[in-house]
């Protein structure tokens, strides 16, 4: 029987080994019934975009705690777009100052979470704003 299942990629771009948050989120997405592809730390934007396409995910969630989000997040969004995959939703989280939000939204990110965001609210956002692509 046909049933669409949400596929989510959790990825950590750049030189940042702090993956506790990413792993907690991966687990929480699993518990929400999503299929989660976790790719580990130290990924280049190119690797992330390419993996997202090979895995046919609906969302890419980027985590960055090193301060390089201004470069890394837009790079992933741009690469997906270049490869005709801008129907994949890109979201992000980490240590991100509020004044950077707008430039990330402009770059194509659909949501940003910072410390204090609850797991429930993130899952809720996914359920409301991301449909498995048809």
């Amino acid at each position, binding site marked *: 029987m*046909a*049933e669409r299942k949400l596929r989510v990629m959790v990825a950590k771009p750049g030189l940042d080994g702090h993956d506790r948050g990413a792993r907690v989120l*991966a687990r929480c*997405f*699993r518990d929400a019934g999503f*299929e989660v592809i*976790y790719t580990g730390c130290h990924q280049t934007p190119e*690797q992330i975009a*390419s*993996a997202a396409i090979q895995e046919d995910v609906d969302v890419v969630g980027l985590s960055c705690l090193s301060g390089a989000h201004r470069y890394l997040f837009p790079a992933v969004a741009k690469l997906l777009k270049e490869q005709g995959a801008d129907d994949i939703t890109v979201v992000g989280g980490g240590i991100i100052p509020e004044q950077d939000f707008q430039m990330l939204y402009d770059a194509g990110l659909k949501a940003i979470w910072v410390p204090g965001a609850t797991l429930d609210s993130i899952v809720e956002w996914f359920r409301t704003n991301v449909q498995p692509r048809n």
Partner: protein
Amino acid sequence: MERVKKIKAGDVRTASRLIRNLEDGMVEARSTIKHIFPLTGRAHVIGLTGSPGAGKSTLVDGLVESFRKKEKTVGVLAVDPTSPFTGGAILGDRIRMQRHAEDPGVFVRSLATRGALGGLAKAVGDAIHILDVMGKDIVIVETVGTGQQEVDIINHSHTVIVVLIPGMGDEIQAIKAGIMEIADIFVINKADREGSSKLRREIMAMLDMAPPETFAAGWRPPIIRVENAFEPEGFGKSLEELSATIEKHYQHLVQHNLIGSRVRRKAVVELNEAIRNSVLEPILERLVQAGEIEQMIQKLINKETDPYTLAEDVAKRYLKECST
């Protein structure tokens, strides 16, 4: 068909989308497979199985590297388990293989079991066909971490590799039925750890006791030792040995006309599966939609009837031949 053309040309988006649609049970995806199927049969399909944490993904990564050096293109299907409670899954096999993410000669796709019990996902059989038609020379299928009984991988592979690690049990484990019987090649992984010589002796003893006809045309499964993956030189060498052994096995199959028997195994399974999909599923779906399933379950709970009578009634209603 446009889609088939794109897949033949190696288009990753189209291929990954089609695999997704098969996983999700979309009927139109099945009709695309009708056009894919006749084009298949070119790739060498390698299955890797073994217990959780045995190092399957790391070995797959090493094999990809080794086959790429020989300029072969590689497709990987990596299966991880679905939660029986939430339906969610963590697909983490890719972590070990990410260095190949940008190589256009490599396609890695993770699949969740979604309730399948044989160590694979339902869509794996068709996903292999898709990678085959994409032109991958080698298709590697990594099962979920297996125990003793999940042997579906033999239905889909030309070459089955069983990955073992030292310290997992006594010699009785080695003579049990199931997973130990399906290997074309054994790998003793993490062989730098204590107990690897003992494990090797146990596998040897098991093979020595097997009736000779077990070994198709004289292929006695070789045992390859692979040591610490964090010491690239030794690890790389073992992986070269493993990939050479895999190629030797394939040549053995070809030389002795054994490919046919492997293809037949897959055909039997695919036919069974397809009949189930086309016959049973539509009936079940109707029963569910009409709420009849629920009524039947209640009848069973109240002991008003038995499952066989109910099933026969359904067969009489939906299947002409069966009711006569």
